[in-house]
């Protein structure tokens, strides 16, 4: 290349400048048809080099004229040439960018999404398996991970041992624009910036890349919804959207935004200060705000119990993404995005806490009064127990989120509408475990209230037995729940349903068995043979009537758990059968020696034994209790 000799003295007439200017003018798109229709960078590489050299030449002239000839006609010429060249370069820059704006390949997005979502797809059912997958991710993705950041990697892998459901960083940058094009863009950007056209460069870059990001957004199904819209949507619809959002957010942060960032860094590498960052923010600030806006709207939506688990999914997904968000949006100018993500996360945590307390409130005050027929398990019990076993599936998250004990005790003490709970004996439990126990306490409290609506005291006890037994079974059925509730409290619960069973037996059978006592049957004085026949006949009749009544009603009662049902029947039989047998043994002869013994001794021991088998089946006995043996 020739030195810029004479450029100042010759008034821009020096060979270098003049040649350069010719090239610039040849490509002045406002002047010739040909220049308008062709793009330099689409054509001959030699022409590209020639043009770039010409631009350099003009820039050199600019720096020398500005000293010696400030404000003169020469500078005017040089400035004009620069302007033409810059306008051209801007168009070339735009054209190269536009050539490569195709949105991310659908396949790439899908596989990427499935790939990264495999680790955290935890619906309640999948909760157990979710711990297993993270490590696969880590291995696979470490190949594309930014290896220049070992500290963070070390952090995240050590973190994963503590809470393994949070996968480690899985940023996966891809090449949005091929390397040759990037290097062209870079050589244009350098010249635009050094000529003071930085703002133009940023604007063109931002506008083109922004529309590419928009296209990828559409492909990912990211919608623009206002907070008002989201408040109005049905929860079912939102659940679907949350699931889709989690998937889309992973792709956006880890692939889309990360790749945009890398592209900016490559193109603007070594040019000016923080230009890459300015371009990156110009491109993704709007999309990032749009993306997070959804999670924001969810985080402030009205709290109700059914939202808990999707909110936790969202929380976990965002928590999972936070380290990546911090990397992708590390710059000062991206402060607001990092801050927003963190705020949403804490608001989701707040929402989860709020929902839990809302749930407790709802359990305490669930108002239904109609007794469930047959004393079986109340729908509330099922709902609450399913709910808290789901909670235990989200234990790892919730243990960190639930930091305060349930609001009980002193605040409500003396309040008959709220149960008491002794925390003293539950020392060493996490606040979450205390909440779960508290929920069981208020559930029982509510059920106790409901049991009062049964007219039959025995049925009220059976109802409590069934429900507390169900609670115990649910707790035992989930290792997480069992661990949190603890064996001590579980023993208490077991004692409670046993107690209900005992109370039931007392309420029903004491009076029945009372018929089988000896007192009142003997005529005073003559002990051996002095049995009052009439009293005995009356006794048998009373017993028969009572037993028939109990049999008739309690066959319609229900103990859904077969083992519990069996146990209770055995327990009944153990008391009833020996008593009846011995009563029969002692007094049978007195009846049989009289008239119509079958009117008084209607049932054999075997009859009773088989009648007990009809109890608690929840269906009316088809035929009247009859003597079946004989």
């Amino acid at each position, binding site marked *: 290349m020739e030195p810029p000799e004479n450029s100042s003295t010759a008034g821009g007439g020096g060979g270098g400048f003049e040649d350069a200017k010719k090239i610039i003018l040849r490509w002045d798109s406002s002047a010739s048809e040909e220049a308008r229709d062709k793009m330099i960078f689409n054509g001959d590489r030699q022409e590209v080099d020639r043009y770039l050299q010409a631009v350099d030449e003009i820039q050199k002239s600019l720096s020398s004229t500005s000293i010696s000839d400030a404000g003169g006609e020469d500078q005017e010429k040089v*400035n004009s040439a620069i302007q033409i060249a810059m306008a*051209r370069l801007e168009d070339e820059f735009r054209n190269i960018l536009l050539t490569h704006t195709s949105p991310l390949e659908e396949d790439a997005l899908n596989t990427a999404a499935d790939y990264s979502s495999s680790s955290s797809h935890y619906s309640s059912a999948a909760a157990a398996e979710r711990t297993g997958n993270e490590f696969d991710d880590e291995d696979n993705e470490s190949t594309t991970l930014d290896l220049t950041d070992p500290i963070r990697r070390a952090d995240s892998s050590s973190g994963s041992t503590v809470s393994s459901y949070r996968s480690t960083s899985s940023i996966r940058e891809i090449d949005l624009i091929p390397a040759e094009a990037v290097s062209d863009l870079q050589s244009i950007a350098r010249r635009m910036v050094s000529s003071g056209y930085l703002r133009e460069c940023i604007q063109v870059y931002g506008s083109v890349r922004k529309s590419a990001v928009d296209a990828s957004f559409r492909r990912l199904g990211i919608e623009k919804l206002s907070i008002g819209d989201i408040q109005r949507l049905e929860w079912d619809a939102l659940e679907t959207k949350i699931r889709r959002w989690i998937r889309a957010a992973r792709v956006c942060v880890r692939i889309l935004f990360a790749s945009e960032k890398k592209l900016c860094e490559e193109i603007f590498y070594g040019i000016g200060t923080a230009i890459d960052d300015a371009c990156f923010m110009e491109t993704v600030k*709007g999309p990032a705000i749009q993306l997070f806006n959804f999670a924001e709207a969810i985080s402030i939506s009205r709290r109700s119990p059914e939202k808990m688990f999707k909110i936790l999914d969202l929380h976990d997904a965002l928590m999972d993404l936070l380290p990546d968000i911090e990397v992708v949006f590390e710059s000062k100018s991206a402060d607001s995005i990092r801050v927003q993500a963190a705020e949403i996360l804490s608001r989701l945590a707040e929402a989860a806490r709020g929902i839990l307390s809302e749930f407790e409130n*709802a359990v305490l*005050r669930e108002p239904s009064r109609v007794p469930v027929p047959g004393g079986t398990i109340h729908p509330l019990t099922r709902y609450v127990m399913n709910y808290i076993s789901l909670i235990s599936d989200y234990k790892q998250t919730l243990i960190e989120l639930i930091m305060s004990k349930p609001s009980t005790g002193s605040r409500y003490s003396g309040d008959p509408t709220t149960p008491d709970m002794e925390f003293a004996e539950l020392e060493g439990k996490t606040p979450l475990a205390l909440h779960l126990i508290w929920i069981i306490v208020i559930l029982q409290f509510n059920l106790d209230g409901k049991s009062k609506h049964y007219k039959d005291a025995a049925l009220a006890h059976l109802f409590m037995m069934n429900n507390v037994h169900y609670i115990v079974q649910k707790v035992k059925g989930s290792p997480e729940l069992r661990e949190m509730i603890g064996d001590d409290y579980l023993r208490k619960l077991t004692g409670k349903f046993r107690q209900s069973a005992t109370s039931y037996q007392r309420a029903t059978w004491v009076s029945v068995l009372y018929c089988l006592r000896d007192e009142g049957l003997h005529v005073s004085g003559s002990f051996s043979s002095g049995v009052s026949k009439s009293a005995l006949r009356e006794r048998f009749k009373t017993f028969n009537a009572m037993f028939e009544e109990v049999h008739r009603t309690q066959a319609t009662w229900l103990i859904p758990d077969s083992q519990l049902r069996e146990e209770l029947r055995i327990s009944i039989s153990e008391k009833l059968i020996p008593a009846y047998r011995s009563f029969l043994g002692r007094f049978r002869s007195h009846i049989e020696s009289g008239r119509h013994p079958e009117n008084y001794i209607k049932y054999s021991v075997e009859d009773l034994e088989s009648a007990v088998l009809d109890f608690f089946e929840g269906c009316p006995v088809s035929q009247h209790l009859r003597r079946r043996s004989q």
Partner: protein
Amino acid sequence: MPATENQPSFLGRISIRRNQVSAMDMNHEQELEDLELFQRHVADRFVELSSSPQSDHHHQQQSSEPLLSVGWLRKLVDVFLCCEAEFKAVLIMGRDPSQITKPPLDKLLPELHERAVKALDICNAVSGGVDSVRQCQKLAEIAVSALEQKPYGDGQIKRAKRALSCLLTALAIEDKESSHNHHHKYPERAWSFGKRGGNSHAGKDRAVVVPFRSLTMVVAKNWSAAKQIQAMCNNLVAPRGGEPTGVASPVYMMGAVMVFVMWALVAAIPCQERNGLPTHFQMPRQTVWAQSLVGLQEKIGEEWKKKEKKGCAGLLEEMQRMEKLAQSLIEFADGYQFPGEEGKVDEVAAQVEELAEICRRLEEGLVPLQLQIREVFHRIVRSRTEVLDLLENAGKVTPTIG
């Protein structure tokens, strides 16, 4: 009470009040006293806002903030934040939760929440609008940097013209709310020449046609700022005089302040779909606290009516001036011949200096304004949560399970 309240003493007052409240039962007298204090503070704050100079006297003082300038909007948002904090104190502190479930609060609070959600969307939309103002600022900066060196060469003039016409297009698009697709367009830089007709680039040309959506619009497609404002006004009814208003009164005042502030922001800053933005809404002009507010509303309403006729950019003072300057500078550039007439060039230099000054103000003001708007967002969310908690404690919330 002096009209110029600064923040520290205001906060001090709150904490004094808190002690008072916790020390004694919230009886009726106390409530009236609180209410009066709240009214007086609201009045004071808006008096101060409306004492800002008119926009056409902006050269008077450096420190003064013309109506609807970025500086003024920042003050406006500050006023909102102060009112909101005090309102919450009046509403929540020391209040017997059971009151919340009874008339009039049982009806007023849900309305307040409805309004709050709408305000949140407006915050987001306005915050996006601030970004489009920044885009315009960038374009103006290009023009400034091209026209700062003299004499104006052909190259500089062309560069400035390109930036300015792009700026005017951007302003026009920001304002073209009736456009059928409702999308704000990104103020895209035009190609340096007419529409490219080259057949060899047909494939790529299609990409140019794809509408460049605004960087910043985050709200839904059919979302309309005007409709949100209208909906916010809908159930905002002053408690009737003569009735023992009690707590209904501050709730109404806060509603009015919120609607006014959101309305002013929407009018000033580019915002999706402002067609049909009310120019007037019911304010109790007879009350002391609302007087300055009504005055401001009338002034801004007038400006908005003018704007609707003329079809200029949003009411943001800087944008309006920017538009005028851009038009004038483009005219100059169109007829420019090197080296230009001396008088004309000096005049242009002054305009460039003014444009540069506007850019500086925007540069200083827009980011803080955006942060403040975010703070408003947070504040509204937090208050909403606090009131919900209060409701929960009042045992009101009894969702059925199952």
